[in-house]
C-alpha cells in the first residue's frame, strides 16, 4: 500500500469530501492563502476557491459560531482550530451550542460540523499552547470525538466525521503530522466507522489501551516488554465518543490486566473513565487494580526535559505494566 503523511491523509479526506458534497467548506485561520499554518490545507484554496476555503481573522468565537449557524442552515462546515488550545476562546460556541442544539430544539436543528486541529503537547510550547482537550470535552453529551493515531485512521475517521450528522471534535496530533504510514488508494473511499477500536498488537499478558500519539509509545513499550517475556495487547479505541468498550473488555477478560495510557491530566480523565467502565463490566476478570499513565498533574512546562517527563512516555508505560503484572 502507498505511504503518505498524516497531514496529507487529512488533506485528502477534506478534498475528497468537498468534491463529494458541495455543502462542505473549510474555515479557519491561515487555511487558505497561507495553505494552513501546518500545511494541512495545502492546495485547497487553488482547488476549491475562496468561497469554500475561507481565511478567518483571529476570531475563534465568531468563526466557530459561524460554522454552527451555517450547519443549522444546512451546510457542513469543517472548522479548523490552528491548535485545540485556541478553541477555549470559543468554548461557549463549541460546547454550549454545537452539541446541544439538536436536543434543545426538539430535534429540529442537527449541527453537522467538524471541529479539527492540533491537540497535545510535546513541542515545548508552554502550558497555554499544550492542551489535550479530550477529557475536558468528552463528558459533554451530544458530541462525538475522534483521536486518530495513524495516517490511515486520520483519513478514514475524518471522512466519516464530515459525513456525521452530529458535531465531531476531531483531535489531531501536531507531533504526528509528518508521520508516514500506509493508506488505502485515493479512489477507495476509505472510511472508518466510529466506535470501532483497532487492536494494534495481540498479546495475552496485559492489555494496554492508548489513544492518539501515546499509541505509538504503547507499541514501543510493548516491544520492550516482549523482550522481558511480557506480551501486551495494545488497543487504540480511535474514538472516545462513542467508545468501543466491548473490545477493551474482551481483551481484559483474556489478559486479566489493564494499563490505560492517556495524554490528559489524571483527575477525571479519559483513562479514569475507561478504568471505571472496565471495573463496572469486568471487575472479576481483573487480577490486579487498573493502572493509569497520564500527564503529571501540572501545567505543561516549557523546559524540554521536564515536559518529556510530565507526558506519558515509553518508560512510564513499561513501569506501569511491570507494576500491574508482578503477581501474574
Amino acid at each position, binding site marked *: 500500500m502507498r505511504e503518505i503523511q498524516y497531514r496529507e491523509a487529512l488533506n485528502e479526506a477534506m478534498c475528497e469530501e468537498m468534491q463529494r458534497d458541495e455543502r462542505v467548506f473549510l474555515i479557519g485561520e491561515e487555511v487558505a492563502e497561507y495553505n494552513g499554518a501546518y500545511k494541512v490545507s495545502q492546495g485547497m484554496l487553488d482547488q476549491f476557491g475562496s468561497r469554500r476555503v475561507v481565511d478567518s*481573522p483571529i476570531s475563534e468565537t465568531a468563526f466557530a459560531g459561524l460554522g454552527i449557524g451555517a450547519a443549522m442552515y444546512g451546510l457542513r462546515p469543517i472548522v479548523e482550530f490552528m491548535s485545540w488550545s485556541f478553541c477555549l476562546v470559543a468554548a461557549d460556541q463549541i460546547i454550549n451550542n454545537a452539541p446541544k442544539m439538536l436536543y434543545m430544539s426538539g430535534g429540529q436543528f442537527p449541527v453537522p460540523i467538524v471541529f479539527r486541529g492540533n491537540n497535545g503537547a510535546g513541542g515545548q510550547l508552554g502550558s497555554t499552547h499544550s492542551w489535550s482537550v479530550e477529557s475536558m470535552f468528552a463528558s459533554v453529551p451530544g458530541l462525538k470525538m475522534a483521536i486518530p493515531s495513524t495516517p490511515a485512521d486520520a483519513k478514514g475517521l475524518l471522512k466519516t466525521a464530515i459525513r456525521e450528522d452530529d458535531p465531531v471534535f476531531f483531535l489531531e496530533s501536531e507531533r504526528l503530522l509528518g508521520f508516514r504510514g500506509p493508506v488505502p488508494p485515493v479512489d477507495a473511499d476509505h472510511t472508518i466507522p466510529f466506535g470501532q477500536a483497532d487492536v494494534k498488537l495481540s498479546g495475552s499478558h496485559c492489555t494496554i489501551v492508548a489513544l492518539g500519539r501515546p499509541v505509538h509509545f504503547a507499541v514501543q513499550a510493548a516491544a520492550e516488554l516482549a523482550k522481558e517475556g511480557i506480551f501486551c495487547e495494545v488497543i487504540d479505541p480511535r474514538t472516545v465518543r462513542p467508545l468501543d468498550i466491548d473490545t477493551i473488555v474482551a481483551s481484559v477478560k483474556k489478559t486479566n490486566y489493564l494499563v490505560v495510557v492517556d495524554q490528559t491530566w489524571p483527575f477525571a480523565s479519559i483513562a479514569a473513565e475507561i478504568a471505571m467502565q472496565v471495573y463496572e463490566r469486568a471487575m472479576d476478570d481483573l487480577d490486579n487494580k487498573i493502572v493509569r499513565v497520564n500527564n503529571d498533574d501540572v501545567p505543561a512546562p516549557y*523546559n524540554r526535559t521536564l515536559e518529556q517527563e510530565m507526558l506519558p512516555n515509553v518508560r512510564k508505560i513499561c513501569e506501569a505494566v511491570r507494576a500491574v503484572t508482578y503477581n501474574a
Partner: protein
Amino acid sequence: MQGFQESTMAVSSENNAARLSDALGASGLLDILRQMMLIRRFEERCAQSYQQAKIGGFCHLYIGQEGVAVGSIAGLRGDDPIITAYRDHGHALARGMHPNYAMAELFGKVTGCSKGKGGSMHFFDKTRHMYGGHAIVGGQCPLGVGLAFAIQYKGEDKVCACYLGDGALNQGAFHESMNMAAIWNLPIIFVVENNGYSMGTHIARGTSMADDLSVKAAAYGMKFARCDGMDVLATYDCFKALADGIRAGKHGPAFVDCQTYRYKGHSM
C-alpha cells in the same frame, strides 16, 4: 500606509515646537539607544541559539519593533504595570530585565525569569511590574483591564500599558476589554503594535477599517492616538503625554495605533 504618512508629517511640522522628549537629555537619549540596540543584539542571539536547538518551542522575535517597547516604556513610570502578548522579549528588556535572566528562560533554565516553565512566550517579572507575555491572542486584554481596575480600586496613580498585536483587534476579549475600560474610566493604555500582519494575513484582510483604527477607539468613546512606532522619540512623546494625562485625570483610558513592522518571520 496612509496613517503612517500622516503621523510623520505631524511630527515634522512640529519640528520647532518643544517636545516632551527634549527633556530626556543626552543620558536619557543614550539609554534609549542602548536599550534598542540591546534588544536587537539579544534577538539576533536568540535566532542563532534557536538554530543551534538551544531554544525550543515558538520564538517570536521583536526585531523591527524595538522603538515601540523602548519609546512607550520610557514614557511610563517604572512602577506602571505592563502586560503584553507572546512577542515579549523587547518589553522585558526595555523594562530593565537583565538579558541573562531572559536568555536563561529561553534556554529553559531554572534561573530564567519564569524558572524555565514559561519559555519565550511567557516571560514574567514581578519586580519590574511586567505581568507577563501571554500567548493566547487577545487574552492579555482582560488581564490588563484587571490591572487597571486594581490600580483604581487601590486609589493609586499608576497607568497600565496593555500591548497587543493588530491581529488581536479581532478577538472578542479585546472589544469587551475596551468597553469596560471606557465605562469605568480605568487607567489603561491599549497599545496596538501594528506591524501590518498577523502571521500571513495582512491587516486589511482580517480587520475592518484597517487604514483608520481611530474608529475602534471612537466606538468606545476612548481617547485615540496614532504614532510612528519606527520613531522612538515620537513614541516616547505620545506615551509620556497619554500616561501623564491619565495620571492627572485629564482624560480616561486611551488606545494607540503604533505603526511598526517586524523584519523577521512570524516565529523562528
